[in-house]
């Protein structure tokens, strides 16, 4: 079936099978490799993308559900060469190590900031509870999100 999706601001017409998962369509058909397949069970968040601004596990989300919607992946966060404040904060805070969880963290934080511009540390932990990282121990990630919140404000 044909679906019409706005991906990172660009309208796309895509031919997808009903059983195609959004993660595979983004990675394989659109070459947007930033979202990663990791746990494949909605626990880790490495596959997170935003559909109409809401975080979803692309590994367990049918591509057809994105029909008529907008999808934001990590490739759509920066504006040209200008990094999003979250990306800049992650770089400066040392919140990136292996990078496999990074796109999921960034997008989840972006969704949170759209809903809550003044998050407390607890608010950030609530949102990131479903995003796993095995490298950083999370501290610099949380610091980066809070720092970015300040900047965005």
């Amino acid at each position, binding site marked *: 079936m044909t679906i019409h999706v706005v991906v990172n601001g660009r309208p796309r017409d895509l031919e997808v*099978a*009903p*059983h*195609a*998962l959004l993660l595979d369509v983004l990675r394989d058909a659109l070459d947007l490799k930033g979202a990663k397949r990791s746990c*494949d*069970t*909605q*626990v880790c*968040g490495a596959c*997170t993308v935003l559909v109409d601004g*809401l*975080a*979803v*596990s692309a590994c*367990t*989300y*049918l591509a*057809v559900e994105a029909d008529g919607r907008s999808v934001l992946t990590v490739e759509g966060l920066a504006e040209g060469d200008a990094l999003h404040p979250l990306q800049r904060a992650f770089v400066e805070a040392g919140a990136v190590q292996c990078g496999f969880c990074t796109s999921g963290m960034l997008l*989840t934080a972006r*969704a949170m900031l759209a809903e809550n511009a003044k998050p407390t540390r607890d608010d950030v932990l*609530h*949102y990131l*509870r*479903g*995003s796993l990282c095995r490298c950083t121990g999370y501290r610099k990630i949380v610091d980066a999100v809070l720092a970015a919140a300040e900047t965005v404000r």
Partner: protein
Amino acid sequence: MLRSFTLHRPETAEEACARLADLGEDAAVYAGGTELLLLMKLGLLRPRHLVDVKRIGGFAEIGLTPEHGGRLRLGAAVTHRAVEHSALVRARCPLVSSVARHVANVRVRNVGTVGGNLAFADPHSDLATLFLTLDATVELLSPRGRRELSLGEFIRGPWETSRAPDELLGSIALTPWAADTAAAYVKFGVHERPTLAVAAALRLDGAAGAGRHGADRIVEARVAVGCVGPRPVRVAEAEAQLRNASLADLEDAARAASESAAARVDPADDLYGSADYKREMVAVFVRRALRIAAARARGAEPAARFPHAVVA
């Protein structure tokens, strides 16, 4: 990786039921997919047809039933997120809104539905536990018409409901508590899914807020324990022990109620813990939930934080 299937997108419940009747075991009902697609990926289910219920009129709505007083009606395809953010839910059943906020993780809440959650009867369901204290009923639609079951009749056991293969869960209705009810929901567990959950509601005598002035008799109590056994349960014995207790003397009644709750549940030794540990923890958290509800009855919001527990 999913095997291929045909996706049906009926726009009426009749059409959906007709499809289910035609396709039988080859079909699965599909809403958010957070349970269904996961089971399909794991190879545990292989439906060749998915019947998507998200376009059926009324399935994504939150409203009040027409009867006097109005019960809160949640369409089967209402997401956890919608419940969390609904002004109507917050007004009529505030604890439902708070608990919805803590189901799984933010991504599951954005996509997963209340109907899907109950229809799968995952033994670790937060909402199933809470809904038992709200006289929850489920509406089942089929070519034969419509029937309503209490949630307790609907959930038979782990992953097992009373839904016939050609029946569709259309909505869930909750009876809001009376205005002078104080309640708490606490879940505990180290794993991704909770090891146990307790919902406790205390209706106090007198006018609304009477509890704050010391007039503190519990007129009615509801205690549900879930996520720890094959299905969530209301603990009638505990509720009886709490009836007529005073908030000032709550500790004794709470202890008795907690012991009843521990005796009432039927946990197994598994990855989430041994049966006797779980029983003990049920007792601990029934007492804690009651204490929090009692504090709320007095207008206080206790800063209760327990490691590995979520308080709503």
